[in-house]
């Protein structure tokens, strides 16, 4: 089996991840932050170790501002709904995933806020960070309170210039929220240097952890309303949730085995090196793109960029049919709209969307050669 769907979730996981999850379940899976017996403390120590690893990886000196959540979607919903107020205006990019677009769309539909979508010019090879920032600046209103954008697109190789956008947001007093679902563990991120107010990321993609280990990292001093309330392990006699992160946002028991696994995933990412992982994926996609562009009937989207994700179509064959045909070769790719109506509209993909290839750290040149051969066969012989 050739797994090229790492943008959905990375697979396989490093051996240490699965081992640590099992070790946690066998040896120290008490309830973290609840009680003070040996198992509760051991679980708490592992959770805190993971907070420190995340803060360190993303350039924050505040592990207490790392808040665990089920996934990036949950993290984004918490930040968005907890921070925005009635009448606010929001800016989001034209490459957003539904994890951002849908909460904003619903709040706008209900009359709670208004929003505008800024262009990333992803189809234009000449675009500079200044072009994007100028477009954003033109759309800022007096009541613009938040800007949300993906770091790396989940459907193509577009990467947004976080440092430049962060500087602009900081200058204008706008909260800067980043969806790092595709970039965490693949592209270096420095929340301080990039002036990010809230970084939302999954544990189960580029950080090589298990599903259920997402998080957001808040700028120190930033506080939001809670999305859910419940047990926090302390201040139990008070009706209000505590004011301090992370417990303020973490009502209920945390998934200790998943977070223990994430801790090992981050250790593996550190060992390989974030830049090395990103380079490996880009090199594979460079090879793939060069080969695909030579095949008549194949269209590659945003060929002027090379990233960890490559999007293509075969003329005359619906994307889902391509995916099903590739599955017969044992190749796992994702087809359709990839939960990104905005992104597909921006790239002008046809009805049915497109085929996404997303290699990971364990993908090989042989994997890409097999994929190229399969696509050549499909183009020549049909499905």
């Amino acid at each position, binding site marked *: 089996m050739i797994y090229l769907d790492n943008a959905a979730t990375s697979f396989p996981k490093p051996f240490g991840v699965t081992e640590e999850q099992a070790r946690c379940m066998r040896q120290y899976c008490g309830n973290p932050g609840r009680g003070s017996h040996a198992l509760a403390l051991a679980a708490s120590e592992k959770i805190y170790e993971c907070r420190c690893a995340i803060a360190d990886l993303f350039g924050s000196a505040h592990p207490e501002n790392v808040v665990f959540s089920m996934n990036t979607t949950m993290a984004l919903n918490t930040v968005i709904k907890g921070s925005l107020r009635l009448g606010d205006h929001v800016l989001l990019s034209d490459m957003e995933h539904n994890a951002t677009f849908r909460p904003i769309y619903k709040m706008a539909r209900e009359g709670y806020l208004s929003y505008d979508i800024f262009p990333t010019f992803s189809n234009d090879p000449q675009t500079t960070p200044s072009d994007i920032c100028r477009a954003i600046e033109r759309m800022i209103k007096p009541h613009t309170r938040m800007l949300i954008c993906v770091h790396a697109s989940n459907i193509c190789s577009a990467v947004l210039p976080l440092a430049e956008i962060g500087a602009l947001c900081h200058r204008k007093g706008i909260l800067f929220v980043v969806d790092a679902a595709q970039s965490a563990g693949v592209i270096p991120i420095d929340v301080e240097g990039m002036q990010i107010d809230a970084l939302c990321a999954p544990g189960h993609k580029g950080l090589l952890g298990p599903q259920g280990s997402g998080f957001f990292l808040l700028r120190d001093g930033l506080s939001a309303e809670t999305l859910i309330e419940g047990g926090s392990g302390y201040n139990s006699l008070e009706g209000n949730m505590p004011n301090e992160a992370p*417990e303020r946002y973490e009502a209920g028991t945390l998934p200790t085995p998943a977070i223990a696994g994430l801790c090992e995933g981050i250790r593996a990412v550190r060992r390989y090196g974030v830049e090395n992982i990103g380079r490996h994926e880009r090199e594979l996609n460079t090879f793939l793109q060069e080969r695909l562009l030579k095949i008549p009937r194949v269209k590659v989207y945003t060929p002027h960029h090379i990233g960890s994700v490559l999007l293509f179509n075969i003329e005359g064959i619906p994307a889902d049919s391509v995916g099903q045909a590739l599955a017969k070769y044992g190749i796992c790719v994702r087809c359709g709209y990839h939960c990104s109506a905005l992104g597909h509209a921006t790239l002008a993909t046809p009805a049915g969307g497109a085929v996404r290839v997303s290699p990971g750290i364990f993908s090989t040149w042989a994997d890409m050669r097999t994929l190229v051969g399969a696509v050549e066969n499909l183009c020549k012989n049909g499905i």
Partner: protein
Amino acid sequence: MRNDFKSGECVAIIGSMTQAMRAQSILASAAIRASIVKADSSKTGSGCAYALSYSCEQDDNVRGVLYNAGIRPRNFYGG
């Protein structure tokens, strides 16, 4: 908080487990050993809370290090 203080044992009530771990880590960086204990819920006024237990000989150092790190314990006991 435990009521069975050993002589020479001091306790700083912190609050959440995360803040207690952070405080413990900061003290460790200053070569001060401290253990995390659960505070006596009847003494915190707000229910459960976590605390740091340390030698009272280090009391001044503990207070200074935590203060400089921006950590404000709710209360101190023992001695």
